[in-house]
């Protein structure tokens, strides 16, 4: 279904970003579109064979909820944080600013994960699942992350600007 490695680079100059695609690319796209649609249909038609009407409605609600939560809350919120970081970052060297952003990205994802773990722990029924001290581990994680980030920024800031990023 996919073009061989030899074909891909060859078609690049001809294709360009928006230029007329080559014949190979056209054929590959048609094959991919047909198989993609077939596989999606298989999945969509399979769902009602095992899920009841109310379960399907519930699934649709969760699908819509996932998009609304992501597009309406997660991205705007991270954009807001990013704008704040841009202001702080103006006074920092580019490398330091990148370290700060990367650290916050990692910290945010780990915190999200732990929030889910703690919620699940509060409703868990089994003794040998979710045994960890996740809140304590998260505090240590942030302490380590802060330390490493601060040290990295300290070192990067002290370098002469001529050294470049």
């Amino acid at each position, binding site marked *: 279904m996919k073009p061989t490695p030899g074909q*891909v*680079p060859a*078609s*690049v100059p001809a*294709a360009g*970003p928006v230029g007329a695609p080559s014949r190979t690319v056209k054929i*590959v796209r048609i094959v*991919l*579109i047909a198989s*993609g649609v077939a*596989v*999606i249909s*298989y*999945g*969509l038609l399979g*769902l009602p064979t095992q*899920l009841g009407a*109310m379960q*399907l409605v519930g*699934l649709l*609600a*969760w*699908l*819509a909820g*996932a*998009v609304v939560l*992501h*597009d309406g809350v997660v*991205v705007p919120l*991270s*954009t807001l944080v990013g704008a704040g970081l*841009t*202001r702080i*970052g*103006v006074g920092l060297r*580019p*490398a330091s*600013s*990148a370290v700060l*952003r*990367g650290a916050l*990205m*990692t910290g945010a*994802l*780990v915190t999200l994960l732990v929030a*889910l*773990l703690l919620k*699940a722990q509060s409703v*868990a*029924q*089994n*003794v*040998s*699942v*979710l*045994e*960890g001290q*996740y809140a304590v*581990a998260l505090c240590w994680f942030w302490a380590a992350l802060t330390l490493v980030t601060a040290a990295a920024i300290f070192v990067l800031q002290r370098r002469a600007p001529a050294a470049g*990023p």
Partner: protein
Amino acid sequence: MEKLTDALAARFASPTRSSRLTVVLGRWLGLSFLVCFATGLFSHGLQNPPSWMFFPTSPAWIYQLSQGIHVTTGLASIPLLLAKLWSVYPELLKWPPVRSLLHGLERASVALFVASSLLQVTTGLINTYKWYPWPFPFRETHYWLAWVITGSLVLHIAVKLPVILANWRRPGRGPAVTARAGDSEPAAAGRWTRRAFLAGVGTTAGVLVLTTAGQSFAWFDPLNVFAPRKMGTGPQSVPVNRTAEQANVKDQAMAPDWKLAVAYQGSRRMFSLAELRSLPQYAHELPIACVEGWSQTAQWRGVRIRDLVAAVGGPADAVLRVTSLEPEGAYRTMDMPTAYVQDERTLVALELNGEILDLEHGYPARIIAPGRPGVLQTKWLQSVEVL
């Protein structure tokens, strides 16, 4: 309206975004989704085997590996998915929302792709915590959505193929350059470059993997602080998924007159615990590996299942139906294909790590076979029937 969306788009604009960034993230994410799909199909095939299914019993840790990869890759795909969606977020705000029928179909397919991907990784993660807050069955939904996502991935690659090809190689190396933030370009004031962003995403995925993979792979155990399971915990140093209380088996399993029924073509032989212990005992080190990704290698000792089949005159290529004492439950009965029956490491285990099997681990007797999902390692045995 267009002015409004343009203004909104300007708010969300970032020079870090570029087609090249999206293509790089798309490659990583597409690969992780395909790995999850392949390992997921393998796991599904082991549990609901089609007629052509193959059952590898060696290496014994094959399911530990495949399911560990499934869960770990799924977790790593979360930051990749968020980054990938962030890189194309301004597309969401474009006006008019639908320019033509074809454009509308494309957007609808992207909406389906995004929604099912977000739901799949989130519910997949929470399922490993054994928490089910949603109004639909997890396993069936996870399975069918996997097809929807994989099909959407193929379709999306087809639709975006010209952009993917134009940005497949680093800008400056190929003739087609559409990236705005090149490698050599300095970052805009206070921002980060594409490479720095990718390094941040990679670090995040790496941290998630390092701090959780220890539930599946022993080498990572010292770093395991954020996984739902920890190796070496639980009774007899093995974690438990379904407890005796949940399965409601305590009275029957602890009954002094418990016997294991082994049946073949109308004849039936009952084995008391003492009789099972008097048969030749074999010990094997085998992992128990769960669909939720955790696994635990342990020392199991008991009777070979093929010896029990032979004791009732069953054929060497027998297929078995094993029934638990559990009064109900999706895994009360389990069918065992010939490959496992014939494997000499498949045991009716009576001991675990040198002690009599704990009630939580299936006392008085349980199945342990190489390379099978944990839910098929039936506990609290009642009967073994040659089909």
